[in-house]
């Protein structure tokens, strides 16, 4: 990746890191290679690149970050008090399906909160996601929205009213096949069928209280009741975070099959068909590593996010041409007051200097002069004007 693409990605990563830190998350690094047993989910294993170590043990290039972090916490942080609030900004690797225009290397940034089952943590991670997207100049709900569901609600309703059909219905819904859901509902008794059909169709702004009201009609059985209560709590805390306006409820959103155990969410941007981030509560994952620890978190897909961010001009940069020792002095004087300087040691004539400046997206070219520099715009090439360092700083950094 070259500038400006690479610098845009790095700038966005820097901005995200800043927000993560402001919310108290500490950043971790994990190896790109994991033992294949670490990742258990079939879909993810299939999508992973596989390698073999010298002892013929199968390794995977990590296809995501949540499981490696779960492993890290269970092995290395078992002694410290929960919750563990960790973040990462790292690439993951997936075998791209041909023709789907995906890269095999995906840059991700995300957080995990491990060791708390409180709905306050679900709400605060969602609020952090909203904060990150807003800090990148996206506004909700016109540019993006976080779609929120509660996977235990539908699962609980099904186990209570139609236990025999539960697996078939959730499989159909995970495949987002509402036609199949309706077909299964058609074979169920009327009272069970109503919820099977209606719950996935409860979609709308989270500020609209009537949706949760309506969902209340289907809160049958302890599990569904508790799940809806949990969702109400999350919404209340999201309101306190001031993030409710960015949230759309979808009670049919259950996410990956058998993975999310409570809140589950996906962020969408206007005009992009794919999720730019997703997350949720995964209370069963840590069990695999011998620790019973509830957890919640999200991952942002940075390439997709970049594709929806407003274009930004190149950062300020001045090309200073030649000047031998005087050039070094002039460059140092400018850098001291915060002007980014690319110093070319060759004494290029102005036309070539301007061409070079355009190729590195520098708006200004200059030559050292006594007490300052001679400054001109690079595109279009302008007249050189003598200025002292302070005046240059005002021009270049404005």
């Amino acid at each position, binding site marked *: 990746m070259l500038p400006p693409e690479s610098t845009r990605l790095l700038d966005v990563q820097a901005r995200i890191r800043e927000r993560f830190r402001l919310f108290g998350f500490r950043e971790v690094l994990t190896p790109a290679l994991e033992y294949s047993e670490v990742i258990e989910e079939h879909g993810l294993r299939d999508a992973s690149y596989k390698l073999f170590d010298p002892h013929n043990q199968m390794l995977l290039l990590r296809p995501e970050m949540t499981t490696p972090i779960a492993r890290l916490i269970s092995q290395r942080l078992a002694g410290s008090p929960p919750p563990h609030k960790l973040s990462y900004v790292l690439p993951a690797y997936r075998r791209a399906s041909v023709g789907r*225009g995906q890269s095999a290397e995906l840059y991700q940034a995300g957080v995990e909160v491990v060791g708390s089952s409180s709905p306050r943590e679900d709400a605060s991670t969602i609020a952090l996601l909203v904060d990150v997207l807003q800090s990148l100049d996206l506004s909700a*709900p016109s540019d993006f*929205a976080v*779609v929120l569901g509660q996977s235990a609600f539908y699962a609980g309703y099904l186990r209570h009213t139609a236990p025999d059909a539960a697996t078939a219905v959730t499989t159909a819904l995970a*495949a*987002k*096949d*509402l*036609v*199949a859901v*309706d*077909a299964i509902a*058609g074979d169920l008794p009327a009272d069970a069928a109503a919820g099977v059909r209606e719950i996935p*169709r409860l*979609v*709308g702004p989270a500020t609209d209280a009537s949706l949760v009201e309506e969902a209340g009609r289907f809160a049958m059985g302890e599990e569904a009741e508790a799940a809806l209560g949990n969702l109400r709590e999350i919404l209340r805390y999201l309101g306190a975070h001031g993030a409710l306006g960015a949230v*759309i409820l*979808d009670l049919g959103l259950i996410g990956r099959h058998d993975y999310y155990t409570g809140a589950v969410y*996906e962020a*969408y*941007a*206007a*005009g*992009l*068909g*794919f*999720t730019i981030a997703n997350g949720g509560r995964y209370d069963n994952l840590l069990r695999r590593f011998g620790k019973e620890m509830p957890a919640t978190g999200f991952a942002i897909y940075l390439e997709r996010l970049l594709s929806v961010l407003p274009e930004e001009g190149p950062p300020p940069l001045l090309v200073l041409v030649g000047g031998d020792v005087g050039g070094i002095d002039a460059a140092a004087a400018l850098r001291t007051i915060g002007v980014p300087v690319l110093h070319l040691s060759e004494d290029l004539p102005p036309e070539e200097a301007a061409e070079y400046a355009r190729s590195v997206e520098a708006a200004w070219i200059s030559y050292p002069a006594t007490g300052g520099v001679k400054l001109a715009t690079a595109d279009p090439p302008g007249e050189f004007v003598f200025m002292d360092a302070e005046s240059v700083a005002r021009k270049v950094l404005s």
Partner: protein
Amino acid sequence: MSGLRVAVPKGAIFEDALSALERAGLPADVLRENGRRLVYRAGDTEFIVSRPSDVPVFVEYGAADVGIVGKDVLEEQRPNVVELKDLGTGRCRMILAAPESRAGDVRRAIRHAEVVRVATKFPDTARRYFERMGRQAEVIELHGSIELAPLVGLAECIVDLTATGTTLRENRLVVLDEISTSTARLISNRGAYRLRHREVAALADAMPKGGTIVD
């Protein structure tokens, strides 16, 4: 009324798709004007016309908010889209067929778990069908007339769509098995389904619903 971009498939289910959209109150009539254009605007609705197998691609990427496409295409491609409604039109069957004269041989070959050669436009559907039976098949993907393949010895049998069975009969092919039934579906992009739920749900509700498929 909608402000949506709708992907409509050319070919067999084009007319049915238009009348379904019209019955839902969308000005789909503009698509009948002339057959050359690819994008049509009517009011605040935009229609795009594409090959049936491309409809799920436009919708999955969000280049169209909703689209109409046969279940056969969805089963083959398994796109990540929301399947909203069975429109009941364009009913056809995905079948395994072989030449009349060799039907017995092909049946026996499959029963004895021999590797049979099968020509199809639906390679994933064919592969999955044979895998489900615990059988192996050499799948040959073609893009044109599939019926030709067994007639000239390119394949022993075919996996293909049939509505009336006429083409099969004309080429002396007999159906060995029915793999699935397909009808036209309304699909939506995952993001559009949530971000523009009111419009998408209103369209889905207003479109005529097909009967449930009886297998």
